[in-house]
């Protein structure tokens, strides 16, 4: 029986994720944290703003987590995304996997973040000094 943690929150506390992924049958825990970077394409980012279609986002996150648990035989998995305004260095997303061996948790962790970015209905607006841009909206 694997434990999944799927959450959309206002603020992420990255420090607690290892406790959440700890498991006696796990020899490896891999975690990725996405944070706000101060420059993008050479322009200084003031903050990011995240918006979500929460009901659907949680469903899509749960699908991704379930797929990963099955494919890599994970003991625990976590997908937690933040919404609202985020400053430089703040965490915006945490994904992690806990498994018997390290191959599985590394591959699963990479899958979690890559798939989240493709399918989960969350939108990011980059706020610069003089403008705001919805990321990826235009070709």
């Amino acid at each position, binding site marked *: 029986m694997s434990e999944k943690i799927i959450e959309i929150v206002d603020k992420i506390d990255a420090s607690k994720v290892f406790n959440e992924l700890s498991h006696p049958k796990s020899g490896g825990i891999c975690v990725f944290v*996405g944070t706000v970077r101060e420059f993008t394409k050479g322009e200084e980012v003031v903050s990011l703003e*995240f*918006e*979500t*279609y929460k*009901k*659907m*986002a949680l*469903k899509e996150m749960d699908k991704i987590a379930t797929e990963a648990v099955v494919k890599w035989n994970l003991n625990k998995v976590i997908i937690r*995304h933040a919404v609202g305004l985020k400053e430089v260095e703040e965490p*915006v*997303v945490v994904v992690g996997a806990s498994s018997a061996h390290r191959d599985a948790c590394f591959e699963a962790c990479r899958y979690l*973040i890559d798939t*989240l*970015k*493709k*399918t*989960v*209905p*969350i*939108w*990011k*607006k980059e706020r610069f000094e003089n403008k705001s841009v*919805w*990321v*990826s*909206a*235009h*070709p």
Partner: protein
Amino acid sequence: MNVLFFGIAKDIVGSSQITFSDEFKKPNSVAALKAQLMLSYPELSKLTSLAVAVNSEYAEDDVSLTVGDEIAIIPPVSGG
């Protein structure tokens, strides 16, 4: 039938929700809804992609729409 808008789609439409109350005008498929919206809001057709969710699941063009459905317009996602 309620249609929810998010991200840049919300900005283009100028609202987070549109209600199709007139049965006559209600689009009966995902494709019809997209066509109608793009006609009314041409900026939507300039986006990288435009997906539709029906009852919080991605829906292909041929999915039909009924009055009780919760429909959402999904511009290019950019989480993470």
